[in-house]
């Protein structure tokens, strides 16, 4: 490891969180989230522009030399936590997390222009990596890139592409006939041979699409390197960011549910006074706080450059998945019937929890990845 992990946010980081929270509370109450999630684009372009102008959010984690704010992954994760808390739909996950992570790890030089266009907030990118069935199991990915007089032609189907239908540029992971490892390509969504089909989703605050490439022209940005290290790190950074987003969501669910149990009266008493409910809230608090510790630690570890990042990222993602689902189930259960209705906000987070549980890999898949990482690092010998 190079740097060291910290266990408390700096003054600056806390101020950043506070200002972002104020901004999102003011601009994205659930009444607004419900409007946006039913809109065609699925996000509020004006609001996204304001996030750029007022908070430099789109490039928060992008180097200043590339036009970004030059902050670390910890700051990206603080932003994710706040997005998760409010469910404010935005291009942040697709552009500033997934695409940014892929570019900075696999195409730091050739991707500079894209990075600065992302930082500017004017350009919407989407990472088209995983394919039908299975998730980030690189070996199974079939999409091919054939070089022909200087340019590449891509063929294949990319699945569960976040903002795939909204983005202007796709970052496509494809296989070159002559190369052992995978490579990253830039594909303009406007070019021929790119078919984008929006997918129906259980969580309308996160849009997905299926992208079919038929001889679509692409520009080679870079390769993932030995053992697909570039893709592994992209997955690590994305999983850590997602884990922090989930922590934001489960924290919000926990607070709202606790408040409701204090309010709701049955049998002449607040349901918060029932010991069975008190004990469950205590157990839930534990799961939430352990997941938070994992998410924060992994974010700090990314900035500190710890060499077991895959282990930590999968640890954080698997814990967050289980804790978020538990929090969402308990939230509905303790709200009772009202918690199952459309007009009550609880289901908005439940759907995000269910969707995030499997996004980038199920908890079981990440637990298996934890052990693989341990074995690679030789911790077992």
């Amino acid at each position, binding site marked *: 490891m190079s740097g060291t992990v910290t266990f408390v946010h700096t003054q600056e980081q806390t101020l950043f969180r506070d200002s972002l929270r104020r901004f999102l509370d003011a601009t994205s109450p659930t009444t607004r989230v419900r409007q946006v999630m039913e809109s065609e684009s699925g996000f509020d372009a004006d609001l996204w522009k304001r996030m750029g102008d007022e908070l430099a959010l789109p490039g928060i984690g992008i180097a200043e030399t590339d036009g970004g704010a030059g902050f670390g992954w910890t700051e990206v994760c603080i932003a994710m936590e706040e997005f998760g808390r409010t469910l404010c739909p935005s291009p942040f996950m697709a552009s500033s997390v997934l695409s940014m992570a892929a570019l900075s790890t696999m195409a730091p030089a050739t991707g500079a222009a894209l990075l600065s266009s992302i930082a500017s907030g004017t350009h919407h990118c989407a990472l088209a990596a995983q394919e039908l069935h299975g998730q980030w199991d690189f070996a199974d990915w079939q999409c091919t890139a054939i070089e022909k007089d200087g340019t590449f032609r891509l063929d294949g189907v990319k699945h569960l592409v976040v903002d795939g239908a909204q983005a202007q540029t796709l970052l496509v992971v494809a296989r070159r006939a002559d190369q052992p490892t995978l490579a990253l390509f830039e594909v303009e969504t406007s070019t021929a041979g790119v078919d984008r089909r929006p997918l129906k989703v*259980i969580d309308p605050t996160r849009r997905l699409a299926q992208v079919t490439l038929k001889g679509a022209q692409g520009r080679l940005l870079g390769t993932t390197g030995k053992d697909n290290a570039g893709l592994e790190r992209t997955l690590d950074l994305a999983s850590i960011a997602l884990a922090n987003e989930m922590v934001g969501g489960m924290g919000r669910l926990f607070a709202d549910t606790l408040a409701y149990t204090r309010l709701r009266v049955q049998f002449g008493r607040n349901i918060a006074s029932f010991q069975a409910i008190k004990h469950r809230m205590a157990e839930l608090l534990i799961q939430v706080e352990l997941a938070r510790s994992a998410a924060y630690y992994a974010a700090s570890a990314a900035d500190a450059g710890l060499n077991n990042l895959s282990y930590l990222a999968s640890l954080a993602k698997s814990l967050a998945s289980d804790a978020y689902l538990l929090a969402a189930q308990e939230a509905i259960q303790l709200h009772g019937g009202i918690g199952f209705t459309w007009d009550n906000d609880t289901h908005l987070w439940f759907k995000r929890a269910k969707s995030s549980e499997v996004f980038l890999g199920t908890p079981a898949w990440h637990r298996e990845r934890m052990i693989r990482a341990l074995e690679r690092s030789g911790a077992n010998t």
Partner: protein
Amino acid sequence: MSTPVTTPDQDSVRQEVRSWLEANWDADTPLIAWRNKLVDSGWGMPEWPEAWHGRGYSAELVRVVEQEFGRVGAVTGAKAGIRLLAAATLLEHGTDAHKRTWLRRIITGEDTWCQLFSEPGSGSDLAGATTRADLRGDEWIINGQKVWTTSAHHANWGLLLARTDWDAPKHKGLTFFVINMHQPGVVVQPLRQMNGHASFNQVFITDAVVPREYQVGQVGNGWAVAMTTLAHERRRADGLRSGSSDVDRGSLRRGRIHAEEDAENLTVLAPYTWYPQRAGRTDLALPQAVAGGRIADPVVRQELARLLAMSSTAEWTARRARAAQQAGKPQGPEGSLGKLVASHVARQAQKVHTLIADGDSMLAGADSPLQGIIAEILLSVPAVSIAGGTDEIQRNIIAERVLDMPKEPRFDDGPFRDIPRN
């Protein structure tokens, strides 16, 4: 009327119903006409008393009748919806006038019913109802709001629980009524759920009128009457859970009367289409795991095995309870666990379906596995541990009634108007 039967044996009953069907069953009779025949002959509800359109048959004899009806595909009395809960309540607590007014049209299916018990402020605590009934001359004037009311949008009649005495303790101040749903003071609004369905309603009641003769049971005795309705509801739910199918949909359904019956069911059964998904659809787990190849994943195999073990033993536990009862053995605990076990099964099923669908668990509608069935499971299971008595209430019941552990200290005795409430 058929000649009264004292205690016939199964064979004689089989003979009698068989010859009656041969003489009377005609798949081209209009539905209502046929069902009126059933009412008059007592074959529509053979378990009902002879005095009220039935034959006072035991469960076994009733099964014989159902078998014979099923054998020839004969249409039975209307059974879907909550009409039978209404009938059971009226048979036990209603006056002869009540029975004359409502029972026949319950069997013929001309009337549909709904149950107006739950309120926004009283979910688990049903007896905390605050919908008020005030006597004005010979009429009860009803004001309040009810919720979770299945079929309220098409029901002719409602079973209403309302408060008539605010100074009595909460269980003593309630009275039970039958309310005509088709009147200006009753406004029904669909209640949309997180899974997109709107199978329940909210009912806003403003100065609605219930004639005094539609009061069921004594003033202040409404809780006891409601208990009868709920007991029958629970019994039916247990029956449905342990697989004994509600109505037999055999073959031989070619007559125009069957078309009429299907149309009827389309309306009456519509609110229940997602219930199987709510219960987790264990039946789909293995086929889906095999179809997608996920059966090769050791974790899927472990969780699938857990699910199959849980759902099989849930069924066997219910059958143990029934077998013990039929053998006249003392009632063991196994009879009271079904509702809570069903929640465990459903949650495990949604876990397994998520593991199997993997990333596609994010998808809904046509993009979700099985054209959205899987997504509907994932978004419906949370309701199973709430509807019809939350898991928390079930645990209290098991601990207090089955295990005889001390009751919760009460904070809601004394005059109702003084009890804290939302």
